[in-house]
């Protein structure tokens, strides 16, 4: 009991300290703004952000714009992840194809993809499509490289042993390669979470009629810093939510791994 209890206690202490630190930082911000060290017109302040939320909500804009950005990011995440996994498997399983095409993908990866945002708006319009494509593209590269690395590092001894059992190519892929890539895919998706939001927001900056990115750039042009900060708080919450969901998923999918957090500090 004692070891379990201690770990429980330690966890509780972590949560309390984390919350305290957060409140402290927010408090310092509030204090600096009230005492005039910061100009609240530019820096905004926690209490004003809190007061902005009811306005934002009552106007009906809060959910509307959040939903737009969220669906852009989620579609981008979904499409980018699926395309990344599919491409990695195609190039990973057909060695010749991999050798021919992989350098192209690496070269494309070198392009700063955010630089493509304006042209995407030109090509795919002001609607949700251009943002989904932007966001999906960012996710694609992260998931592709991670998965491709995973395919290349499947345990040789396991491959031989399964081959000796007479596995077909499809059995190989679905019974050995795919499951052994799961940790790698998840690592790609972890990076993709942030990237999908970046893609959506930057896409909205370039040209949109809705979404949190659009609200941010619109509000900034009217010096409504409180509204900008509200949007950032929402993005912050979305980020936390994404990570929580992924952590749950990881815990489920990777239960076969020895737990890493059994050691403590060293």
């Amino acid at each position, binding site marked *: 009991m004692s070891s379990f209890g201690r770990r429980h206690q330690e966890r509780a202490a972590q949560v309390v300290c984390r919350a305290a630190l957060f409140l402290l930082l927010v408090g310092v911000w509030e204090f600096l703004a009230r005492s005039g060290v910061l100009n609240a017109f530019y820096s905004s302040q926690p209490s004003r952000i809190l007061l902005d939320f009811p306005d934002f909500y009552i106007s009906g804009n809060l959910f509307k714009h959040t939903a737009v950005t969220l669906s852009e990011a989620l579609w981008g995440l979904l499409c980018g992840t699926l395309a990344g996994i599919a491409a990695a498997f195609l190039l990973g399983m057909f060695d010749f194809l991999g050798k021919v095409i992989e350098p192209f993908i690496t070269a494309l990866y070198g392009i700063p993809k955010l630089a493509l945002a304006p042209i995407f708006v030109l090509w795919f319009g002001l609607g949700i499509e251009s943002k989904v494509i932007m966001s999906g593209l960012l996710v694609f590269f992260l998931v592709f490289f991670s998965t491709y690395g995973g395919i290349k590092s499947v345990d040789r001894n*396991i491959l031989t042993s*399964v081959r*000796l*059992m007479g596995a077909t190519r499809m059995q190989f892929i679905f019974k050995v390669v795919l499951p*052994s890539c799961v940790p790698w895919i998840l690592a790609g998706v972890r990076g993709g979470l942030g990237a999908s939001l970046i893609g959506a927001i930057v896409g909205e900056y370039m040209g949109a009629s809705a979404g949190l990115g659009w609200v941010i750039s619109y509000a900034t042009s009217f010096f409504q810093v409180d509204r900008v900060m509200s949007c950032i708080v929402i993005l912050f919450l979305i980020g936390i939510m994404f990570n929580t969901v992924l952590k749950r998923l990881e815990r489920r999918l990777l239960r076969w791994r020895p737990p890493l957090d059994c050691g403590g500090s060293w």
Partner: protein
Amino acid sequence: MNQAVTCASTAVSAPDSSQFIVDGVSYAYPSENGMPIPVIANVSFSVRPCEFVAIVGTSGCGKSTLLNIMAGLLKPLSGSVILDGRPLNRISPRIGYISQFDTLLPWRTTLANVELGMEIRRIPAAERREKALALIRRAELAGFEHAYPYQLSGGMRKRVDIIKVLALDPEIIFMDEPFASLDVFTREMLQSYILSLWQETKRTVIFITHDLTEAIMLSDRVLILTNRPARVKAEHAVGLARPRSPADLRFDPEFIHLHRRIWDDLKDEVTRQGAA
């Protein structure tokens, strides 16, 4: 268990019929400067049904390469491998292969790992489950059906590795230094396990090892390989009574005598390897 019956009857009806023949096999690896490095030089031997043959050689002598050729993973440069009268050109479902590595799928539980081969052969789920559970029980792994490999000890993992192969009912089982990475006590436990397993369900076993003691304890016949390039240097019949117990055998005079005799053959190879 069916296997045991067919196996025994063939052995009786034709005592000198060979189930598995390695005939003049040679192999060389390509090297940097273009001159191939010979690894195996004209190795020939044959194995009778239900025989337990140990192949002993120093490390790096080409044992594993030979086994890979015998399993159909590698093509010999010359010579051939014959299984039941037919040349073996590729992987055969009648051969089971237990390697020195941990080849359990880490994301599968004990039960799912044992079922893997049967899944690959598309055996119906109910039959698969039943057979896997029976094997797990007999390997004294009951209670660990749903454990992941990381939750098992080294010896337990190896037992799962072994029954995973047994689940496919191979007629011949190859073991490539299966206990190389285990500690002495676990090794001895697994040797007993292999002995009792073989006693129960007689199958042909070809066991590769660099451990002479292990070879004598387990086998009916020991083949000694030379250093690289490997040739068969000598062959010794092991007439020790069965069933055997590794713990007692160690102090058996007959065992000690045999060990000394075979060691004389192997000694030269070990010292020569040290000099090289």
